[in-house]
């Protein structure tokens, strides 16, 4: 067992050092860390509240006081972008963790390892949800789930006497994450299943079985570590698309509800022709952040696939 750990660590470290040799990857990791940290700690970093209005500074271009200018209600765009990033970051993180990693990897492992009826059941369900035009399913779910979840959270508030649960925005987070999870798990489940099917053929799985290793031990100690590389690549590449989908949802008004700021809604408000003519900074500020977020995930995914893909080594 000890040998196994040191080996996988070695593989991991070599991959990491190869990744850090790529300048693009390093820059992207740095940018992502900055964006994620400033989003998560928006309450510390943001110079103003997202609802704070400054009536003497309405529709002002970027200045030292307001780094990205102010909008039509005199609110600081930079602060609103930070809070919007926080929403996007939390939602995409929850969706990738539950959907792709937890459900997707779990079902993929079971499906590939067990085979038979369980396998075909899981794959059939996956086929059904992947035959929806995915963005349409996400939109329908986001539109229809909200009242149900809102009702459920209200019921929780009343039943357990918790106040302000709805106000925290937890409803929005739940609705959007659920909608994103609905199709997010299929890709990783299929990938994981294919990996397991091929790794299962190896002799070391047979020998582990023959010395009486438990199923969970085989799954998590022998199969998972060997299937992890393509998984990391696919999840990193999927993050960009996931962020994009979250932004589409909030752009359509199905995401985080005002007054909480969301990047999609800011892009919607900044993107109309009249605003563009008068106050282009309303689009430029949030636009650059969204763009950096998506391109960095995409480029990082590319670099990772170069590094981890054995064929291009």
């Amino acid at each position: 067992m000890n040998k196994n750990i040191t080996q996988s660590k070695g593989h991991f470290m070599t991959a990491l050092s190869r990744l850090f040799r790529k300048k693009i990857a390093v820059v992207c990791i740095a940018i992502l860390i900055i964006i994620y940290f400033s989003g998560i700690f928006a309450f510390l970093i943001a110079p103003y509240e997202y609802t704070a209005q400054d009536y003497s500074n309405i529709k002002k271009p970027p200045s030292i006081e307001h780094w990205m200018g102010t909008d039509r209600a005199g609110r600081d765009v930079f602060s609103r972008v930070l809070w919007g990033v926080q929403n996007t970051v939390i939602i995409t993180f929850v969706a990738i963790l539950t959907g792709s990693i937890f459900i997707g990897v779990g079902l993929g492992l079971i499906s590939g390892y067990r085979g038979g009826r369980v396998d075909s059941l899981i794959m059939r369900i996956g086929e059904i949800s992947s035959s929806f035009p995915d963005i349409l399913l996400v939109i329908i779910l986001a539109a229809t789930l909200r009242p149900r979840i809102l009702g459920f959270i209200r019921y929780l508030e009343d039943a357990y006497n918790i106040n302000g649960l709805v106000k925290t925005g937890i409803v929005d987070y739940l609705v959007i994450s659920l909608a994103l999870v609905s199709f997010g798990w299929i890709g990783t489940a299929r990938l994981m299943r294919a990996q397991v099917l091929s790794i299962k053929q190896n002799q070391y799985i047979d020998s582990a079985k023959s010395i009486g290793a438990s199923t969970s031990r085989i799954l998590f100690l022998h199969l998972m570590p060997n299937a992890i590389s393509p998984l990391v690549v696919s999840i990193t590449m999927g993050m960009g698309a996931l962020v994009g989908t979250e932004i589409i949802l909030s752009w359509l008004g199905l995401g985080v509800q005002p007054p909480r700021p969301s990047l999609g809604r800011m892009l919607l408000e900044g993107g109309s022709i009249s605003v563009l003519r008068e106050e282009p900074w309303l689009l430029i500020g949030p636009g650059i952040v969204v763009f950096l977020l998506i391109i960095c995930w995409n480029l990082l995914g590319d670099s990772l696939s170069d590094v981890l893909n054995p064929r291009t080594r």
Partner: protein
Amino acid sequence: MWKYIVGRLVWIPFLLIAVAFITFILGRFGPGDPVEVMMGTKYDPVVAERIRSEMGLDKPVMVQFYKYIQSASKGDFGESFRFRGRSVSSLIAPKIIVSAKLSLVALLISISIGLPLGFYIAHKQGTWIDPLIVSFSVFFMSIPIMITIPFLLWIGCLKTNLVPCSGWGGIFDSRIIIPALAMGIPGVAGMLRIMRATTLDVLGQDYIRTAQSKGLHFFTVSTRHVFRNSIIPIVTILAFSLAGLLGGAFITETIMGIPGIGRFSVESIFNRDYPVIMAITLIGATAFVIANLMADISYSIIDPRIRYK
């Protein structure tokens, strides 16, 4: 092979019924009572009850669903809640045609930029040109469409007045330029990558070396041997590209005021017009499933090494 195709074909109706069922349930348990939506401010409980029994909405959900599937399989998707007296088919048919035209032009843009570029950079593997162009394509892929369109509008309409700012006039109208560019350019990255990969694959084959070593001109080898063989697998990703265009269509059509299916489905979702949403989802799913099947089949025809059981 035939067994595989027949098996897939038999499975399709079940898939579609499952898709219809999920959408149906979401619609039934979603917000808004359809009768309330229909009557708007003139809501009257007695009349509402009558409409409900007329439309069969008072029957159990499974009965309603069975009736729906029965008529939907004949191509009758019922009547729109929002536009009284209009059948769903008559509402969405012209919109699908508009969207299909727009997607076609967008797809042509992706193909006509992506394929030649991918073919070119595969020959430049190892030089600085290859990673540069790949990075550029990722750059364009990463700009969300709700930023691309305002940017293109700003250049094409506000600053230079080359094209009108919104509207729709068919394929041969200058108003298609901005939406088609905005939807087509993100797709370049995908095309370019696949083309690059397949070209590299073909370039490494023995028959290319044979062609080169028997003294054929570089141009002949490129066009007759490399290009012809590397273009084939592209067919298989066209299906997925069309599906990817749908996501952009929602936003593009809404911003540009194009009367297509993307904008209409967004409107219908906000109007709680469930018959329309059901029909759009079902048609979309049918197209998607069939495109997938065709991709898989063409894959095994093109590459005989792939055999389905």
